[in-house]
């Protein structure tokens, strides 16, 4: 379509041809920017490794914390139990019965009437009544009565007053022995008392 029109101007045509030739699009070879591959791969693998290691460490530390938590929990339980046991012991030491027993053993008694001491005037208010042994209260219940088997009624044997026989002599000497023994006991008891008085 254009070639008949171009015929008369061949010079121009040549120039044009050249231009056309020059302007013709050709496939440009793909320019590959050869960016260095190594740093990227390193980065990615680093991120990956760091991630995995991090996750692993995180998990480990969580597990560690869990172990620590449960051992601390056990410890807290033990300590709480110990505290409660000690508190119980303390309560038992504070038991009025125990305190009173110790006090009474030291010779203290609860007075029958209170007397107040006024610290400013140094005078007492109330009637001063001596606290005596009678004021001590009975702290322990009396022992239960023994069953009849263990505490039999005393048996009385009437010995007829007869003439002295050899048997009587023997029993008399037995009596004497018993008396001597009794005296000995008495002596020991007195000694014991003396020691205590000191």
């Amino acid at each position, binding site marked *: 379509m254009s070639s008949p029109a171009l015929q008369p101007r061949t010079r121009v045509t040549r120039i044009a041809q050249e231009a056309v030739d020059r302007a013709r699009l050709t496939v440009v070879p793909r320019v590959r920017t050869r960016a260095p591959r190594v740093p990227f791969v390193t980065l990615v693998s680093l991120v990956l490794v760091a991630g995995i290691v991090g996750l692993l460490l995180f*998990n480990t530390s*969580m*597990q560690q*914390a*869990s*172990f620590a*938590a*449960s051992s601390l929990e056990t410890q807290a*339980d*033990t300590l*709480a*139990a*110990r505290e*409660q*046991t000690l*508190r*119980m012991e303390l*309560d*038992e030491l*504070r*038991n*009025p*019965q125990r305190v*009173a027993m110790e006090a009474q053993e030291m010779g203290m008694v*609860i*007075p*029958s*009437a*209170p*007397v*107040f001491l006024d610290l400013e005037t140094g005078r007492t*208010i*109330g*009637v001063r*009544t001596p606290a005596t042994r009678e004021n001590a*209260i*009975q*702290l322990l*219940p*009396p022992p239960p009565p023994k069953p009849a088997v263990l505490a039999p009624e005393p048996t009385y044997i009437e010995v007829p007053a007869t003439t002295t026989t050899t048997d009587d002599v023997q029993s008399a000497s037995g009596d004497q022995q018993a008396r001597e023994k009794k005296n000995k006991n008495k002596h020991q008891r007195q000694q014991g008392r003396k020691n205590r008085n000191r």
Partner: protein
Amino acid sequence: MPSTRTRRGASRGAPMLRLRIGFVLIAVVLSFFGARLVQLQGVDPRSYAAMAAAEGAVRVPLQAERGDILDRNGIPLADSIKGKMVVADPELTTDQAPEMARLLSDRLSIDYFKTLTALRGRAEGSKFEYVARRVPSTLASDTVAELAEAGYEGVSLRDDPIRDYPAGDVAANLIGYMGTDEPLGGFERTFDKQLAGTDGEATWQSSSSKGVRIPLRESTLKAAQNGAPLRTTIDRDLQWFTQKVLAQAVQQYRAESGSAIVMDTRTGEVLALADVPTFDANKPTESPEADLGSRAMSDTYEPGSVQKVLTASALIDAGKAYPRQKFRVPPNLARQDRVIGDWFDHGNIRLTLAGIIAQSSNIGTVLAADAFSPPELVAYLQRFGLGQKTDIGVRGETQGILTPGDAMTSQTKDRVAFGQSLSVNVAQMAAAVNTVANGGVRVSPSLISGSAVTDDGLTVGTDVATRTRVISKQAARATAKMMEKVVHPEDGVAPRAQVPGYLVAGKTGTAQRVAADGTGYDGSTTVSFGGFAPADDARFTVYVVVHAPRVDGGGGSIAGPVFSRIMGYVLGRYGVEPTNGRPSRLPVEW
């Protein structure tokens, strides 16, 4: 080439055939997988999921701690501590049972042979046996650690809270006691809802046998709601003292039982309520069952002459008598059905109303009460709180017996006037006497500080205590003045109830006891003493009752000294100084 291929093919069969056989094999295997998949996912997916979850799941019940029962100062009367039960798996322990039993019975102070039986298994093939229950936690874990160190297996621990009563028998009749798992008496049972709390539960996934949690896995926690403490108005030391003094008197006079109560006059708070015989709350099974409740609240008895205080104060309030009023008291008084006599022989004597109270004359009281019709007297007594429950919060409280006014004959009224033909419990009578102490205003007695709800749905405690005026202040003062005469060394019948240095007002009571079968009086007596101090500004009311003493004596000689001892102690304990008021100078005779 084709020739070689054919040769090789011939030895292995046709390729298509081989291919097919291969496919069939693969299909068979895959179809097994498919069937298993359908079985897992289609038939019963949930049970498998549950099994998976159960693998490694740890479920720990969190036991709620039972609330303490406290005295008025916050000292525990009952407390809970962590405890353990020691359990054994006989399959593991049978072989070394004797060695283990020796160690366990040594450390835990339990019976060797029972331990041995438990370790060997009480039944064939048993996998779980209790070795010991309610062992303090530290002791239990130390012992099990020791067992493990020695190389023994099969003994483990589980939670088992311990209920401890540090003061043993102090206030045991009120507090009650625990059975193996449930409360069996007293406050423990009445206020169980408040004390018990609600158990919780924790679940988590575990990877090890020690139950260590797997982090980020499903775990739930429902915290236990501990029981709320119950605060009573009891003063532990005073309660202890009251019990000891009362027990001593009961033993000395060989009495059947006794009760004593200490009340704060102004607030109605019960500081001590003692029962003898009592029991050790830590070992309730060692005492007879009859001793495990509160006799003071559940038993009724005839109050005897302490009742005369109420009659006299009502007469004065109604304007029908006055302390100096003169009465001619004959040796005995014939009324319709029977003759009324006095406890002491006398001819015709001339007593004032104060003298009638001081000498405790039945005849004089009947004569004075003639001014009342039965309904009038009963109305007063009802306002004093007789015949109605005090709703103090103690189980099995009796309401006593008071015949209604319109049904009461004049003979019954005569006897009611001096304390027979009606019956009361200890708290009722103490609250009535306390009314006189508190200037005529009755304060309902309470044992619970604040308020608490009983298992019957009743709210009790100091918060709901009521105050009602029963008699005028003047009448109360006049009655107190007359009551002072009772402990007068010459004019009264109970000089031994005096507390040195203080003005004490009180009244003795000696009543015949109704036989257990209800057929009349059985010859034994109930002796009592109720009173308050300081008489002119009362702070405490103490009431002591001793049932069936086998040694001869009356309210003045048996209950009076107990009253004096308790009153002296409580006045000193609360720092109440003597008031130095003028003693009553009412004449007893004319």
